[in-house]
């Protein structure tokens, strides 16, 4: 328990250790700590930014999808309209065509009927004349009645 040179030696040792710590230990560790603190802060900021960007991108994507859907719906509606139009047009065409065919057919039928009627009338006249000739040959003197006959023939 004596006070001696140990006191001085310890003081010198203390000074040397503090100097060493101050010069070679403390600054690098503090620098490392500060740098890491900054890096972490930067990383957190970047993460925050990333989250924001993702939200923005999601919003954009949703908008794009919405727009595309509207466009698709428009296109479908247009196509449906066009299809309806085409069907209508086809129906109209078909009707006109049918009308035309029917009209043509009835005109032909009438023509045919008229021709048949004309033919028939010719044949009836020929027959009547033939019948009348036969009857008249027997009862009527051609000469006596020639004026009446001529008159008749003229009428026919």
């Amino acid at each position, binding site marked *: *328990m*004596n*006070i*001696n*040179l*140990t*006191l*001085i*030696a*310890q*003081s010198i*040792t*203390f*000074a040397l*250790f*503090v100097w*060493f*710590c*101050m010069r*070679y*230990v*403390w*600054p*690098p*560790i*503090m*620098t*490392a*700590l500060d*740098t*890491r603190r900054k*890096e972490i802060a930067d990383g957190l900021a970047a993460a925050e930014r990333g989250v924001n960007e993702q939200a923005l991108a999601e919003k954009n994507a949703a908008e794009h999808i919405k727009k595309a859907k509207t466009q698709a719906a428009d296109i479908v509606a247009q196509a449906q309209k066009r299809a309806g139009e085409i069907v209508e047009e086809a129906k109209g065409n078909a009707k006109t065509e049918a009308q035309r065919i029917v009209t043509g057919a009835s005109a032909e039928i009438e023509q045919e009927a008229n021709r048949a009627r004309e033919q028939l009338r010719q044949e009836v006249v020929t027959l009547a004349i033939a019948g009348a000739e036969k009857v008249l040959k027997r009862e009527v003197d051609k000469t006596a009645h020639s004026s009446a006959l001529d008159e008749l023939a003229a009428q026919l």
Partner: protein
Amino acid sequence: MSGETLTASEYIKHHLQNLTYGKIPQGFEHAGSWGFAHTPEEARNMGFMSIHVDSMFWSIILGALFLLIFRNVAKNATTGVPGGLQNFVEWMVEFIDTNVRGSFTGKNPMVAPMALTLFIWILLMNFMDIVPIDWLPHLAGMLGADFLGMDPQHVYFRVVPTADPNITFGMSLSVFALMLYYSIKNKGVGGFVGELTLQPFEAKNPLVKLLFIPVNFFLEFVSLVSKPVSLSLRLFGNLYAGEMIFILIALLYSGGAALGIFGGVLQWAWAVFHLLIVLLQAFIFMTLTVVYMDMAHSSH
């Protein structure tokens, strides 16, 4: 126990004697030559020009160990994910940094590293108290006998540097010198003297002021001088008492099996409790140093 022939009182005395190197005084064997003291009386008679080799050995070894480990980490410090040791070192550094930031308001790049050095160094020196008290002295006795041809009974070896007042005063007086230096540097000689003489009793009347000066000086001087004294004696007293109790517990080992087992339990219990003191005293020394440095930097 290091020797069967020792009585309890001799055993205690043996444990409380430092390994002292110096000029062997008159009236002892080999008087006039330099060497280790063989007895406590011889060590005492060596006077101031002698040195406690054991205290200095452990003090330097432990301080160097601290600086070596921390320097190694500082050199390879990465800013990425830190490893286990770096994590621990950074934790310590941040702990000290937070403490210094909390109680030191001035600007001095020396205070925080000094606080770190004091804390870890004192912590390591205090930890030597936890090592079973006979191991290292016994080893030293064997080494002294084998290599230096000394009588192992006369190889004194104390392993707790902070239980040596030289060590604690060495540190606290250094801190005191820094206090005085920074006080005068920051406040000027006038400011420092004024702080010592013009408070706590203040007066407007010049005559009363003059009368107050001796009273103030007495009070302030005592409070100033008590700082390094209390700083070192607190640490020394705690560790010395702790060591003393370990020595007394160790005495039980020579009292038969039952007492030996009882001593073992006691030693374990005291070691656990002493861990608190080890940590607390290192922390108190560091904190008070920072506070004193703060006082030296800030004016009233």
